[in-house]
């Protein structure tokens, strides 16, 4: 039973990374390294939770005015909108104004995590009610106390989004155009593809998906009112997962599970593997996902296979007159 709990819990925390990395892959396929993902995930979660807070009554015994499914859907929409607005802001700066992508992304993270904490702190002032909605998110396993409770509806949504993204990227004309934009925007432009539009749409959709990761982490996985403080690290791990999964969303599903396993393995070492570790050492175990990412990064760059490389124009702003 413990093993099942461990695996399901790893799967669930992994889905947080999956949302973030799927969003980031879509953005990077358009040639944009968006380092604002941690901030975007936070803002997405903050928008979703703000809506939830407004809809859940202060009195714990009172039933909310709306049916649970509608509450979840509205929260998802708010999260998507929050992420999309952040994506729009990034695109405006990095695509239209051609600013440096690294700097823009970092500024998004500083601004986004700051605003996230600000929003959650003001929610706390009004009384936290959003946490009670966590049972709605754990549908269809909301009535169990077993490990299955970690696998709410958003786990399936996350995996579905990753698969759909993979199909769109590799099997459709839109995906082909998007990859062309990321590989060589000048060529894509010459072929009549609207580079700016693709970059905008990819970044906005990617950011919206990443935002869902933040909401999932707070409402489903953690289900606590303090989870927002730890979201930044998860965002950075999502960015790392992009490399780990070699810019392929379907590999990201497996990668996110591995990351999830590494992320929580410290807590399960004593019960699962009979390894007694002290508090100090558990901190060293927590470095595992990061160390493994570094190793994968090094291995892929040593092997230097063409199909495992980032999009060729990643991080370079496109300016038509530069040709």
């Amino acid at each position, binding site marked *: 039973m413990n093993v099942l709990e461990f695996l399901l819990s790893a799967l669930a925390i992994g889905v947080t990374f999956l949302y973030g990395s799927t969003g980031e892959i879509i953005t990077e396929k358009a040639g944009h*390294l968006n*380092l604002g993902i941690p901030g975007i995930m936070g803002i997405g979660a903050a*928008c979703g939770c703000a809506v939830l807070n407004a809809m859940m009554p202060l009195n714990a015994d009172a039933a909310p005015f709306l049916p649970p499914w509608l509450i979840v859907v509205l929260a998802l929409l708010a999260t998507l*909108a*929050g992420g*999309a*607005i*952040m994506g*729009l*802001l990034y695109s*405006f*700066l990095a695509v*239209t*104004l*051609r*600013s*440096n992508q*690294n*700097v*823009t992304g*970092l*500024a998004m*993270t*500083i*601004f986004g995590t*700051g*605003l*996230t*904490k*600000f929003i*959650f*702190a*003001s929610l706390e002032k009004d009384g936290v009610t959003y946490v009670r909605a966590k049972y709605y998110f754990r549908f269809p396993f909301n009535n169990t106390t077993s490990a299955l409770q970690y696998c709410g509806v958003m786990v399936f949504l996350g995996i579905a989004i990753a698969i759909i993204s993979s199909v769109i990227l590799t099997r459709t004309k839109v995906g082909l155009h998007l990859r062309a934009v990321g590989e060589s925007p000048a060529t894509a432009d010459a072929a009549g593809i609207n580079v*700016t539009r693709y970059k*905008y749409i990819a970044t906005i959709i990617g950011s919206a998906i990443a935002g869902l990761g933040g909401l999932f982490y707070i409402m489903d996985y953690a289900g606590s009112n303090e989870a927002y403080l730890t979201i930044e*690290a998860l965002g*950075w791990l999502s*960015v*790392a997962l992009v*490399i780990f999964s070699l810019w392929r969303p379907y590999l990201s599903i497996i990668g996110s599970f591995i990351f999830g396993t590494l992320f929580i393995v410290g807590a399960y070492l004593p019960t699962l593997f009979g390894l007694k570790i002290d*508090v*100090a*050492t558990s*901190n*060293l175990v*927590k*470095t595992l996902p*990061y*160390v493994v*990412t*570094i190793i994968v*990064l*090094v291995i892929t*760059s*040593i092997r*230097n296979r063409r199909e495992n490389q*980032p999009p060729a124009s990643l*991080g370079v702003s496109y*300016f038509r*007159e530069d040709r």
Partner: protein
Amino acid sequence: MASEHHNAVKEPLIHITKNAAMPFWKGLLIRAAAVLIAFLLCSILAFFLIGANPLEFFGAFIKGNFGSNAMMAKLRIWKLLKDTAILLLIALAVTPAFRMRFWNIGAEGQVLMSALAAAAVVYYGKGITQEWLLLVIMFVAAVAAGIIWSVLPAIFKALWNANETLFTLMMNYVASFFVAYALVKWTPDGSSVLGELKRGHLPSPGNEYLIFTLTVLLITGIMFVYLYYSKQGYEISVVGESQRTARYIGINVKKVIVRTMTLSGVLCGLAGFMIVAALDHTVTTTSVGGRGFTAIIVSWLAKFNPLIMIGTALLVVFLNQGAGQLATTFRVSFAFPDVVVGIVIFFVIGCEFFIRYKVHFRHKNRHAAEVPAPGGEGSGGSGENPEKEGGGGGERPAEVIPDKGGKLK
């Protein structure tokens, strides 16, 4: 952008070209205008978000940075100076790498490891009785840790072209867990709070931050000379512009990458040493507190010029301090300063466009004020971002049009 028009030759509505040379003062003016507009926007936001009227808003920036009476003034101004100095030092540390387009975003971890190493020397060095010797060993240990943390990604970059951005980013987290590990080890009560280290303090003649601030100022000058007037600084610039050119003229690119990141490591080491020996006298997982990331922006805003960096670092700390005061007065989240700093940075980043590029409209005389950016699409939601972008777009007519009419090549 492709709009319907019955011209014989369809010209795009907006035509953008590179702006080859803009006089220095004009660029400065545009940036100052961007900061001002962002600042005004923040004051409007503060009014709606936390209920601070503009007078209270600007008052907080004066009070937060310069104090409200003579005694507070001294404390606040020294805090402003030392916070600027540490941010500037870390910005200086990342600058040489950025000048060769090596995107090291791991200053956070590099400084943190250095601080940890310095603290470790104090913790384990009880046998070292001479204070000066302890300080020297602390310094050496900090620099060594900084070098290890920054050279590792550089070696992999030089040998196999491993992505340095993500490598250094991951190293940040490894560093922070190392600190967490050490703190648990060092505090038998399990609190993980080290408390103030009693030894290993830099001497403090005059003010406790005086030596530190002067050191940073000296290093700023040295770095300026190094980057602009030395052979190595020149090599860094060439590698940044074009690695092929660098190879062609006989520069060993790999050597330059590793050497430059070593220099970065030394400066990060110094910053970590200073945090333990001169500023905090302790180490926590948040000793660097995001300065490693902010420093990157400070460096970039200054166009990687150490002298201008004094100004950009001062600006960021000034905003932080003022917004922090605002957050204290109005009892809102301690994260509020990040929001203010973020908004100002967005504007400064955005305004670079109007310095680097020139916008031409199809019809010279009319519709100049039309804003083409799709910023207006962001309807709904928090209502904050559209406003910001509206502000960014609104800047355009004010700044660019006179520029177009005034100075054509």
